[in-house]
């Protein structure tokens, strides 16, 4: 199997698995229990928190554990909205956010919040010129992702942070796809809230963290016991937390060398595809991108058909974000970039990872060329020759 969907999920790194094992087997105490066996589990949680904080340049008390990138995004958005709802009801986000942010904004909209969706240009970059003008005295939060999960396009977070800070507005940035891919130094980045999801960085599924800058007002989404300073109740997933810390450490440790390696492979992939398949468009190619992601549109064919065709060759890739797959609507990210619905429908995302080798890339180019050709022979739409 050639797996090229690392933006959807990644395998557990053996070192992460090893780190988790003692907490699945011998050290299974409840971190909130008052005896030493519980303290042992507590120590593991707090050591993990400290480790993650060191890797991402923040203070341990600024790291909250929760169960997924999605939950972290919910805690950030709902948490700030409910903490500051009395001060203002306006939130600014973008048209290209992950559904974890978009659908949470929709939910907040139905609670009475006003949401502004910033547009992106054809390269997939958020138009920050408009940001300053949409902020008003009701604005409590700006949420702009660090890099897009479908295209890999990096957003100008520091500039956005400057604007937000000047206006006294909090900034959440969805960093789920950038930890381990970009140099995420939270203190530097200028954001107030940022999630990390373990399963995107060779950690386990079911665990994540939210960075919450010191002093950021936040209401809990899940209430109950006093865990996580009362901001996220529920018995801690100790093994998961230890795994997350190990995964973050690995991600930071290997970021530079892996990034360089993957950028070369990604470029090889795109060159190969351009050379062997006509009428292909690489979405976001002109923008700065994370090194592992490539998003392509093939005119006249359907993305799902390409995915199945390649699956039958033992190659795993997807049409876009995993959680919207099976959804018949074309990618909201590509549509926001001005790509028409039919072209968006013919798009796939290829995301490389630690296990990706040069041979995998070459085999994928070949399989992709053959599949697209076969599908185009079946297709009732002849690419650009078809009047739309």
């Amino acid at each position, binding site marked *: 199997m050639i797996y090229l969907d690392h933006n959807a999920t990644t395998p557990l790194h053996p070192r992460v698995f090893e780190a988790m094992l003692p907490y699945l087997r011998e050290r299974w105490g409840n971190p909130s229990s008052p005896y030493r066996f519980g303290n042992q589990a507590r120590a593991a949680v707090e050591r993990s928190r400290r480790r993650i904080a060191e890797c991402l340049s923040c203070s341990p008390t600024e790291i909250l554990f929760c169960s997924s990138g999605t939950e972290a995004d919910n805690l950030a958005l709902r948490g700030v909205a409910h903490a500051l709802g009395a001060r203002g009801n306006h939130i600014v986000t973008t048209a290209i956010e992950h559904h974890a942010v978009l659908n949470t904004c929709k939910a907040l909209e139905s609670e009475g919040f006003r949401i502004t969706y910033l547009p992106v240009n054809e390269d997939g970059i958020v138009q920050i010129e408009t940001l300053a003008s949409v902020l008003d005295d009701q604005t409590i939060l700006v949420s702009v992702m660090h890099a897009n999960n479908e295209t890999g396009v990096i957003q100008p977070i520091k500039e956005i942070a400057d604007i937000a800070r000047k206006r006294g507005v909090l900034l959440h940035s969805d960093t789920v796809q950038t930890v381990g891919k970009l140099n995420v130094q939270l203190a530097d980045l200028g954001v107030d809230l940022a999630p990390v999801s373990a399963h995107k960085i060779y950690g386990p599924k079911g665990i994540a963290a939210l960075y919450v800058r010191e002093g950021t007002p936040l209401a809990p989404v899940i209430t109950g016991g006093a865990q996580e300073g009362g901001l996220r109740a529920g018995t801690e997933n100790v093994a998961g937390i230890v795994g997350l810390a190990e995964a973050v450490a690995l991600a930071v440790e290997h970021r530079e060398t892996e990034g360089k390696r993957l950028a070369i492979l990604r470029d090889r992939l795109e060159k190969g595809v351009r050379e062997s398949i006509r009428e292909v468009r690489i979405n976001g190619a002109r923008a700065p991108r994370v090194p592992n992601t490539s998003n392509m549109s093939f005119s006249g064919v359907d993305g799902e058909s390409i995915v199945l065709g390649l699956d039958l060759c033992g190659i795993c890739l997807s049409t876009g974000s995993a959680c919207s797959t099976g959804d018949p609507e074309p990618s909201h990210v590509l549509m926001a970039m001005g790509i028409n619905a039919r072209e968006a429908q013919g798009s796939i995302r290829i995301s490389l990872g630690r296990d990706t080798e040069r041979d995998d890339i070459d085999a994928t180019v070949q399989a992709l060329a053959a599949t697209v050709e076969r599908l185009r022979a*079946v297709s009732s739409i002849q690419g650009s020759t078809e009047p739309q």
Partner: protein
Amino acid sequence: MVDQFNDDFGDLEASFGPILYYNEIVIEHFTHPRNVGELDESETDGFGLVGDPFCGDQMKLWIAVGKDKITKIAFKSFGCPGAIATSSMLTALAEGKTIEEARRITDDDVIEALGGIPERKRHCSLLGVRALHAAIDDWERRRAGSADQP
């Protein structure tokens, strides 16, 4: 290779979440669709073009009719594997049938012949049936047109 994965699946459709699991017949029709192509203008007796505004799929279908029977059928489809496989199966079912019989083919017939398709792909099978009806209508119009001619 398909089999390696198959053992895990039962009636998964009953539960939650997006499941795009296609069975082996569907996959066979997707990888080797029957009657792909176009008929020559000269041999075309009916043509249908339909689109699914919901998912963006599109299908073109050509028929040649002799003695009220569909003697030749060809299609081209833009769409997901479900669209391609149901298009293919529809043409396989329609070929050799009388116009009357062909008109009675339903989307359920197509799905049954394929051994089922994912619930959220059922609408794909309508595309083929609608394209066939459009082609038959076209054939009837053309026949009426030529009958009108002196």
